[in-house]
């Protein structure tokens, strides 16, 4: 089905009782050209671009729960392309451009809101670092503005400008950054991919790989039976190590929990996405009025999908340092998602040493903004067997060859990225 002003009016005038299902809940066929494991944003985006851009339509997306029940439904909805290193800069800008045309492409309202992302700086050294990053962005054709204190005061007069320890001095602003409605992104891709014939198969857990005599992956064993595949793509975020283990692969990945928080709804306060550079705190306000915010990962291996108190305390302290007046706003809910933290903080999109098996992993806690770009380049890899030029550096063997993309300069310590 296609949404239009007439279909919306028709549904509204009939008391909202005649909305059609937006995607087919498919039953698995015996074989597909491409099977994608993981029905999150990345898996569904990959399926959509395979069908729409690369003409591969005999595709299935397998999801062990329901689509969007993993990290896609847990993240803090921020989109941006303010990266500084070769490899990241071009890729995230590709993704940003796909965000900007997503609603037209998918015929679905994913509520992309380019309200701006500002990274505040609090010291001369941090200003220099942000100036450098902003210059890198502009050299690469990405919008960036370095704001001084007066400009930040005008834009966000409610910040605590008297903080003796971390005084706000200015910020790096990307006006094209902002937020998108995370569930609608998943539903939009499912809606559009399903319309082009992609089978979205929910409640279908992959339990093993089918391999031929040469070791090539020729299908998957699932809780709904064996499904044959020409190629298998993994886009399973926090479960990357566990799924790769079924194919005998060890990955440069640790799984960690990242918490996020929502306050009760308040009147419109925060006009954009803000990050508190001194304490690693980020916040935006949802369209319903809740403050959506987060900070560091908990910092130890976890598959528990729930965090612990020290980080919660640290995040709330960051918020209070920036905006003391939110101290009486109540925390409505908190949740934790499992991040596949790579050893340099950057993603991996590559063929694996196992023939027929392709990997999309290591998004750390930056996967949401990458959703359309990730789908686009992973579909390219699956369809053409060569990496897309904007993802050519996201190699699995870059740790062995020394070609790391370490945006934070932290070394091989996943809990510091």
């Amino acid at each position, binding site marked *: 089905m296609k949404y239009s002003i007439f279909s919306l009016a028709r549904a509204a005038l009939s008391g909202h009782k005649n909305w059609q299902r937006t995607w087919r809940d498919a039953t698995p066929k015996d074989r597909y050209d491409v099977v994608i494991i993981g029905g999150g944003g990345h898996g569904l985006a990959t399926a959509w671009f395979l069908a729409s851009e690369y003409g591969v339509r005999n595709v299935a997306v397998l999801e062990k729960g329901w689509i969007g029940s993993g990290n896609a439904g847990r993240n803090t909805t921020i989109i941006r392309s303010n990266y500084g290193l070769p490899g990241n800069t071009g890729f995230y800008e590709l993704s940003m451009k796909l965000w900007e045309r997503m609603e037209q492409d998918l015929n679905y309202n994913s509520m992309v809101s380019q309200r701006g992302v500002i990274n505040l700086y609090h010291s001369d050294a941090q200003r220099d670092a942000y100036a450098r990053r902003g210059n890198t962005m502009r050299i690469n054709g990405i919008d960036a503005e370095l704001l001084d204190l007066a400009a930040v005061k005008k834009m966000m007069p409610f910040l605590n400008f008297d903080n003796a320890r971390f005084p706000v001095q200015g910020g790096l602003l990307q006006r094209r950054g902002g937020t998108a409605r995370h569930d609608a992104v998943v539903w939009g891709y499912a809606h559009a991919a399903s319309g082009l014939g992609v089978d979205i198969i929910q409640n279908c857990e992959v339990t093993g790989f089918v391999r031929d005599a040469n070791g090539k992956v020729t299908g998957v064993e699932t809780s709904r039976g064996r499904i044959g595949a020409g190629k298998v793509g993994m886009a399973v975020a926090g479960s990357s190590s566990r799924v790769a283990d079924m194919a005998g692969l060890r990955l440069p*990945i640790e799984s960690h929990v990242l918490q996020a928080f929502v306050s009760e709804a308040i009147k419109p306060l925060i006009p954009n996405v803000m990050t508190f550079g001194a304490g690693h705190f980020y916040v935006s306000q949802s369209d319903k009025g809740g403050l959506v915010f987060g900070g560091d990962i908990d*910092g130890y291996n*976890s598959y*528990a999908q729930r965090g*612990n*108190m020290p980080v919660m305390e640290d995040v709330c302290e960051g918020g209070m340092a920036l905006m003391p007046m939110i101290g009486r706003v109540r925390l409505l809910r908190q949740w934790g998602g499992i991040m596949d933290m790579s050893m340099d903080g950057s993603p991996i999109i590559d063929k694996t040493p196992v023939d027929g098996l392709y990997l999309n992993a290591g998004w750390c806690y930056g996967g949401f903004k990458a959703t359309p770009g990730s789908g686009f380049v992973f579909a390219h890899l699956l369809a053409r067997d060569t990496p897309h030029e904007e993802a050519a550096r996201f190699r699995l063997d870059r740790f062995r060859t020394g070609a790391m993309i370490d945006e934070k300069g932290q070394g091989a310590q996943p809990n510091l990225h």
Partner: protein
Amino acid sequence: MRIVCPFCGERELGEFTYLGDAKPVRPAADAGEDAVFDYVYLRDNIAGVMNENWYHGGGCRAWLKVTRNTLTHEISAVEPAPGAGAAKVDA
């Protein structure tokens, strides 16, 4: 999550710093590139019971070997970890 330090007793998590999986052992200087690559970058990333190194920086400053379930955060054992990390403990 609270950790029962063998020296200090039960303490809150904020006193401790995580180093990571206790299993990887630094290879010998002549062990070769593969061994170093494996040690620095590859991880078992266990979903279940795992032995980990933690540092009790907010207390006795000892390195500890913690046996913890990564699926539930349940801690089943905490022992001194002589030789782990930078500090040594005479256990």
